């Protein structure tokens, strides 16, 4: 039996090193595997690796590989394949969009057939996390040789499924009979069908045309739960939602204003209204599933306090400002919610949903921070490496103003910057933890964002399906799928 999965979007490509959407990467996880991966709780687990050791300065990592693994084309997985795959990605000439993940890679040394040593140019404490990123996969050197650039259309990996077809809106893989995990996989194949409309995806599930639906709309949960043969699974996520305020623009230059807005928004209501309750308020700038998470003292919902702070900052009657986000239902809903909440403290918010290209233009089209037209922007972020570094640095680093990175709040705090940089220079978890704890505290106090919530991931599936689960970064694992 084939598992059919309903997903909201289309894949963008079949080369995980050259795509940047979670869906394509997740889909390719059926065909390709990396050295490491995540389990359900975002904990690192070895996949094609068996174990690793790092030196103290976090510049050299020795990794022992799993033996007896074969690529779909019948060739052996070995140290050489790892070397070729990693160096291919790190080579700027290949212009692969995921290169930045391991741009610090110097070289990969083959120690023996099943051992490699990864040498970095600069210390990078988060390397193992990075290696678990779905973009960093091991490809068949023979296939790379054979297909060259066309590898993007002919993926050959070590995964539980072999690539079969990708056309228009369906992606199909079939069972890999020689998979290294004996007895797996338990289904004959997997088909991903892109079904953009929420209602349609749900209908397909009810009609039995698909057995698994990701990103299930929260508002439909009560309906789905009433259906006897359906199961709704709720999982925590590392997707945090926030509304960035441009800290270089009045009135957001004043931290009191930013804090006031945080007090003005009822986070519990946010979760209830926007996410139909499937969400937890953020307790730190990053979601709690990321490593080195430290909870902070919540900004409790307190209109009086918010008003007082605003008055103190010189805005007793509030002010007018604008928020923008993408034009999908959820983000529009969230903006509307903020609009209503902030109205209570006299802040008049204009809501502007933008088409993605236009939104991107507003964010990335800015060369100098003072030219930015952003006042507030609502967005969500998930650290694709599952690590605190990528969960904070792109968004809040002083060197990360657009167009370099995604610091739309134009937030710059030298102490925080130092924390980020320090944490990257060591592989010692304790040291890194200290840096991130400090950073989280400072950011929380500076409040460059209205901290909203971490949404839960909802999936719905037929009751007779088991073994599939969603990862906190919105990826999902289909390898263990099994029908009862």
């Amino acid at each position, binding site marked *: 039996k084939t598992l059919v999965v309903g997903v909201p979007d289309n894949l963008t490509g079949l080369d995980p090193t050259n795509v940047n959407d979670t869906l394509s990467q997740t889909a390719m996880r059926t065909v390709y595997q990396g050295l490491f991966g995540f389990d359900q709780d975002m904990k690192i687990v070895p996949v094609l690796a068996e174990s690793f050791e790092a030196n103290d300065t976090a510049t050299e990592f020795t990794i022992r590989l799993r033996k007896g693994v074969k690529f779909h084309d019948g060739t052996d997985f070995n140290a050489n394949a790892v070397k070729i795959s990693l160096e291919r990605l790190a080579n700027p000439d290949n212009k692969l969009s995921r290169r930045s993940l391991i741009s610090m890679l110097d070289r990969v040394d083959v120690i023996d057939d099943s051992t490699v040593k990864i040498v970095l140019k600069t210390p990078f404490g988060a390397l193992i996390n990075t290696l678990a990123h779905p973009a960093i996969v091991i490809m068949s050197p023979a296939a790379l040789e054979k297909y060259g650039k066309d590898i993007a259309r002919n993926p050959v990996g070590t995964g539980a499924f072999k690539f079969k077809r990708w056309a228009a809106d369906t992606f199909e893989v079939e069972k890999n009979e020689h998979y290294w995990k004996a007895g797996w996989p338990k289904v004959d194949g997997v088909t991903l069908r892109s079904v953009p409309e*929420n*209602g349609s995806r749900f209908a397909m599930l009810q009609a039995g045309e698909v057995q698994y639906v990701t990103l299930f*709309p929260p*508002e*439909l949960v*009560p*309906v789905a739960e009433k259906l006897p043969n359906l199961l709704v699974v709720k999982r925590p996520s590392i997707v945090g939602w926030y509304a960035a305020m441009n800290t270089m623009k009045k009135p957001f230059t004043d931290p009191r204003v930013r804090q006031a807005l945080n007090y003005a928004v009822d986070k519990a*209501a946010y979760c*209830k*209204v926007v996410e139909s309750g499937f969400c937890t308020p953020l307790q730190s700038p990053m979601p709690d599933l990321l490593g080195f998470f430290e909870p902070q003292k919540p900004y409790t919902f307190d209109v009086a306090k918010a008003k007082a702070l605003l008055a103190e900052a010189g805005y007793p009657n509030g002010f007018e400002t604008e928020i923008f986000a*993408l*034009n*999908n*239902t959820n983000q*529009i*809903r969230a*903006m*509307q*919610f903020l*609009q*209503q909440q902030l109205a209570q403290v006299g802040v008049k918010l*204009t*809501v*502007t*949903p*933008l*088409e993605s*290209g*236009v939104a991107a233009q507003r964010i990335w089209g800015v060369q100098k921070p003072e030219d930015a037209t952003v006042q507030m922007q609502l967005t969500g972020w998930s650290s694709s490496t599952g690590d605190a570094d990528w969960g904070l640095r792109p968004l809040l680093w002083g060197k990360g103003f657009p167009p370099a990175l995604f610091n739309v709040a134009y937030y710059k705090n030298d102490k925080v910057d130092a924390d980020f940089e320090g944490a990257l220079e060591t592989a010692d978890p304790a040291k890194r933890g200290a840096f991130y704890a400090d950073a989280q505290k400072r950011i929380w106090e500076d409040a460059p964002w209205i901290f909203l919530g971490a949404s839960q991931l909802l999936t719905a599936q037929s009751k007779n399906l088991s073994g599939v689960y969603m990862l906190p970064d919105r990826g999902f694992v289909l390898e263990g799928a099994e029908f009862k």
Partner: protein
Amino acid sequence: MSTATSAPAIVVASDMRTPLGEFWRRFRRQKVALVAGAFLLALLLVAIFAPWIAPYDPATPDYMAILQGPTAAHWAGTDAYGRDVFSRILFGARISLAVGFLSVSLGGLVGVSLGVISGYYGGLIDSLIMRVCDVLLAFPGILLAIGVIAILGPGIDNVIYAVAVFSVPIFARLARGSTLSLKRAVYVDAARAIGVKDRVIMMRHLLPGALPNVIVYFSMRIGTSILTAASLSFIGLGAQPPSPEWGAMLADGRSYIGVADNVTLFPGIAIFVTVLAFNLLGDGLRDALDPKLRMA
């Protein structure tokens, strides 16, 4: 009594009528259209006086009353923010009527003018205008709208422009068609023989002849444009929230089909009834304006 035989017996109309009165007299007999017109008038009043009529503010949420079905307090229930659907429909009438009516009027005005000019002068002007219309027609309408909104930014007025732009070519074609046939009419020659200027001929003698067809299409188009606005909302480019535009309400509410049907049902009914009324009114107007029917 004696009469000249050759004088044919004419039944002299008893009451003397002004053109407007005449029109009204014929229109009055279109009972269905009258009802439709009255409804639209009422709707217009509702739209204007919405702030005084509506029981609730359309934008104020009530998180204690989310997604309720119709009750005595909320006649059409509440939506996902606990806003009163009925009040939103009343307020939404403003926007939806504006979108429907203004966009089509704008498109119709430009289109009909172009069409009449094109048909009357013919030749190079005609080819030029018609080719431009071809280009506009060939360009998928919704894409044009996306473009307009992407370039001008979101907002209800831009939705109106967007919808207007792609109404133009069809109106132009309609008007051109009837102008082509009307300009051969003897009365147009008669006007020219008198020395009436081209501009006046177009305005006075050709334009009114194009109206019956235009009106039918106009009334259909109003529906289409309300829906186009809805489709734009569907892909997230419609009216700016929290505007209670009917199409946007439908688009928003579609996620609750099966959970809270009232959220989509009532705006749906509002659109349906309004479009129906426009069509019935359009039919009535057409019939009242049609000189052929007058003779009957």
